[in-house]
């Protein structure tokens, strides 16, 4: 299984994230929490915005006066809220684009993941519209610049009965109602943004919309300190009898404004439309790798236990009334459009037992690209390839395609997610004497490529979640290593240390080796599937 190998950008992210792991710890690593952080920042902006509204006045002179009061006399509460409102909005832009770039780098935008990618694109525009309408409300020199440049740009569409920019021709042209309209827009647009954010997470199960408390505390605390050290700027009041010459732009929201001013408007409109369509269409852009085949349900082996539904990270399985007359109320049904073929469902199925004979090894829910029978065969083939040195323990590695062990290597089986291996597979390897120890090498601890692979694996091994690892499996012969794609050296080091510990444990007890027939059959299938995956 060599598909989905991390590219250079993904490896770059991994290196940066390793640095952040040291500062924040894996659990609070902000790059692994970009989605939840975006939500958190949205709520900070919402709460501070509601607070600011209590002190905000609408009117040609009253607007600026109220903002000035907040920033000067009320600096310690309303001024602080204003700075938090501004900087949290700026950070939303940073988080949003980093999230987009990271998901693209990790290849999490194609196939079944198209929905989240596609619905994320309008969010970008609504974040910008929300922010830009906010700048108008301050009605300082920057607001004047933003209002006039925006109005002149929108007027190039030629769809407005009256040029919007006429409103800003002179002080006599502007009315108090303008600010009422802007307040309405600045509330209505973020409400639509909230709706879009909700839609964005609809195709994943148990979507994380709250960062871990520690990271939330760090973010809010640092924002408050930054807001106190460098309060949000307030320029002089807008004056339509003059023109803003040099303006301190907020480059997160307004970096396009110099372009709007200088470039030909049709070119900018075409660029915006083409850019938006191009980004939105990326999931279908060439080169299109063949889409992974979705999981399949085999009703003869499905008792409707719902474990696959509980473990699927993408809401891709649902229970429907039984269709085959078996004495169970429900059966699992895969929604192919949503399935990313991570195999976690296969690892969750109680029928996924490698102890059964390999020839007819079928489970309740299986992965066509790497079935349980093939995985079992690959494990047996990989065990055969382990170097047989006298006295040296044999260590078999079950590895995630997105972690440190993503490269094929002797004694290693690479799979889409380590959670696709049912706990009984570890038991099988040790009880059949295929290896003296098993390394489970998953993604970096900070974030699983398939969301819950790490959590479910740890819970199953710790016997906290079904299917549980049997008690008879010696835990000292299992090692879990959570490491990113650039940490191959750490994986090798920890595996080597593990081997040394295994040497001290002596040989495995009560081993029941595979029969020759079973072994030969598995080897043939295993080598065949390894060759197919490598191709």
């Amino acid at each position, binding site marked *: 299984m060599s598909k989905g190998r991390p590219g250079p950008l993904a490896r770059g992210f991994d290196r940066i994230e390793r640095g952040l792991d040291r500062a*924040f710890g894996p659990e609070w690593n902000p790059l692994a929490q970009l989605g939840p952080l975006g939500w958190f920042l949205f709520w900070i902006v919402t709460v501070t915005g509601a607070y600011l509204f209590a002190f905000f006045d609408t009117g040609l002179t009253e607007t600026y006066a109220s903002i000035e009061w907040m920033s000067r006399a009320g600096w310690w509460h309303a001024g602080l809220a204003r700075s938090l409102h501004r900087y949290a909005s700026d950070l939303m832009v940073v988080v949003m684009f980093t999230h987009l770039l990271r998901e693209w780098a990790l290849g999490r935008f194609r196939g079944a993941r198209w929905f989240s990618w596609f619905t994320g694109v309008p969010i970008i525009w609504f974040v910008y519209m929300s922010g830009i309408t906010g700048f108008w409300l301050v009605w300082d020199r920057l607001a004047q610049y933003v209002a006039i440049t925006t109005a002149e740009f929108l007027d190039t569409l030629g769809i407005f009965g009256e*040029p919007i920019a006429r409103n800003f021709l*002179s002080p006599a042209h502007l009315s108090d109602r303008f600010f009422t309209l802007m307040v309405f827009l600045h509330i209505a647009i973020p409400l639509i943004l909230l709706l879009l954010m909700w839609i964005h997470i609809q195709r994943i199960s148990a979507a994380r919309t709250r960062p871990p408390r520690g990271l939330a505390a760090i973010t809010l605390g640092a924002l408050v300190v930054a*807001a106190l050290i*460098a309060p949000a700027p307030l320029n002089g009041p807008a004056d339509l009898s003059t*023109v803003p*010459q040099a303006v301190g732009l907020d480059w997160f929201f307004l970096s396009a404004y110099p372009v709007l001013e200088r470039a030909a408007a049709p070119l900018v409109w075409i660029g915006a439309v083409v850019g938006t369509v191009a980004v939105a269409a990326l999931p279908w852009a060439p080169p299109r790798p063949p889409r992974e085949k979705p999981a399949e349900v085999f009703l003869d082996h499905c008792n409707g236990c719902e474990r696959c539904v509980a473990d699927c990270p993408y809401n891709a399985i649902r229970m429907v009334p039984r269709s085959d007359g078996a004495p169970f109320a429900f059966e699992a049904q895969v929604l192919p459009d949503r399935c990313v073929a991570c195999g976690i469902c296969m690892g969750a199925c109680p029928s996924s037992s490698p102890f059964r004979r390999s020839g007819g090894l079928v489970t309740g829910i299986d992965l066509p690209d790497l079935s349980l029978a093939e995985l079992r065969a690959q494990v047996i083939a990989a065990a055969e390839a382990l170097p047989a040195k006298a006295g040296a323990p044999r260590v078999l590695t079950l590895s995630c395609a997105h972690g440190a062990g993503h490269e094929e290597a002797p004694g290693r089986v690479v799979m889409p997610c380590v959670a696709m291996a049912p706990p009984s597979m570890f038991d099988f390897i040790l009880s059949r004497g295929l290896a003296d120890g098993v390394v489970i090498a998953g993604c970096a601890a900070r974030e699983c490529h398939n969301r819950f692979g790490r959590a479910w694996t740890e819970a199953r091994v710790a016997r906290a979640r079904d299917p549980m690892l049997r008690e008879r499996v010696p835990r000292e012969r299992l090692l879990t290593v959570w490491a990113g794609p650039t940490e191959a050296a750490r994986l090798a080091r920890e595996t080597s240390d593990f081997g040394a510990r295994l040497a001290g444990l002596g040989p495995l007890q009560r081993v029941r080796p595979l029969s020759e027939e079973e072994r030969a059959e598995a080897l043939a299938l295993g080598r065949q599937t390894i060759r197919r995956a490598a191709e």
Partner: protein
Amino acid sequence: MTGRVVHLLTGGAVSLALFLAVAAVSQWPSWQSVPDEAAVIRLSLRHGGVRACRPASEEELARLPPNMRLREICDRRRAPVHVRLVLDGQALIDRAVPPSGLWGTGPSRLYARFAVPAGPHQIALWLAENPEGDGARWELARQVTLTPGENLAIDFDTEAGGFVFHEGRREDG
């Protein structure tokens, strides 16, 4: 210190450094929209051009109900208005502004902005409904001294006599 406390401190320090950088980029570097020694002239107008009309024939009038018998039949579409803005002898605008609306039934609308050097300028404005014919036309020539950063707004209002200069920090000549 426990790991969590260490991460709170180091993570907080990293976050604070990032947020201060964000605060800096939130206002710096500044953008020079208009050069320091320049002023801006904005011309905005809204004026409906004339419609092409002809006398109605007896047959046409007979086909109409008595209460709708107008002597002239006019096209829905308005003619463009012709606008000229000349600054110090150089034409900044000299064109026909088409009527608005899908069928050309609305008024001609124009909004234009020019950054010009501050100082004295001779401005000449001219608007004609029909430059070749005898339609209404308005003209205005004026000497102005623009200060740096001034916004000189020129509007058009037939009831006020044509072109209107909106008072700003302008010193008329």
